[in-house]
């Protein structure tokens, strides 16, 4: 159990490092989206500025681009919904296992 915990913590630290290190190494990079880089590549291949033939319906509805702050709101909403569900389910699993272990009186070790 402790070994598992150590593995998990170690892995999570590794993830954080992989994600953060580029920010320190590439100090003058823009960190724009790679989806946008895709549209740049399209222009390079076709030789002309590509004009999308359909604009996102939300942008059409508000007649402009989604403000950055509002966009981050929706991204947070998405993350929040996901994390909420995972935490809820995981919490139930953990409690259930505790009760089962308590009932049977033996500590299952994985």
């Amino acid at each position, binding site marked *: 159990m402790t070994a*598992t915990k150590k*593995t*998990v913590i170690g*892995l*999570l630290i590794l*993830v954080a490092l*992989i*994600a*953060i290190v*580029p*920010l320190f*190494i*590439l100090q003058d*990079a*823009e*960190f*724009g*989206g*790679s*989806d*946008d*880089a*895709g*549209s740049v*590549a*399209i222009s*390079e*291949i*076709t*030789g002309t500025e*590509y004009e*999308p*033939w*359909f*604009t*996102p*319906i*939300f*942008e059409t509805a508000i007649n402009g681009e*989604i403000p950055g702050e509002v*966009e981050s709101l*929706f*991204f*947070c*909403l*998405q*993350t929040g*919904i*996901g*994390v909420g*569900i*995972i935490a809820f*389910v*995981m919490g*139930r*699993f*953990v409690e*259930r*296992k505790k009760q089962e272990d308590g009932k049977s009186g033996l500590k299952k070790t*994985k």
Partner: protein
Amino acid sequence: MNTSLNIREKRFIAVAAAIALVFGFTPVASAMHIMEGYLPVGFSVAWGVICIPFLIAGYMAIKKNLKENPKTITLLAMAGAYVFVLSSLKIPSVTGSCSHMTGTGLGAILFGPAPMSILGVIVLLFQAILLAHGGLTTLGANTFSMAIAGPFMTYGIFILCKKIKINRHVGVFLAAAIGDLFTYCITAFQLALAYPSESGGVAASVVKFLAVFAPTQVPLAIIEGILTVVIIIGLETYAQPELNDLGYLTGGVK
């Protein structure tokens, strides 16, 4: 996979495909990371139609699974939530641009590839409508890359690793990471098909788009692999009954 469907189901698929064609002409076709309006109409429709049978197979797989193992609905919700979280996190990468993960690996490993088409398309719709990320016209192409091709790759790698008896967690890592990467390879391929280079044709374009996506995605694929292993470790510790229902621990993943 269609061979195992009965006549009623086949008819259902045919009708759905017909409806998809009709709707395809009003821009309600398909896509994941290709931006709104960036695929020509023909491609948008074609990718959307290709996705239809997979979505129906996914729906049926979920229904069948929930009927046989009602308890696993919690894990299914979790797999969906995992896609929500991972595809919302934009992470800086070594190339100086940001990208995000797909998160479809976990569900593909637990439930097999088919159900992920449904879970993936939900996330893609959310992002296309509310975030102007991806798009409704590109929904088909994006669904194919993220919710179909990626999960199938993940599942294939996972089964392969099981066959050759690699450590299970290493197998999970490889499956999730390669599935993530494969999603972006398919995206590059889709863009290349739509925008073949004048000098080198589709092949030259594939190389070009891969050069845009792949280096950014490699570190992220590694992160996705690791995170999926972490979740799997958590589930192995706390959700053994559900994993047994799914056949994850015993071998025969359904």
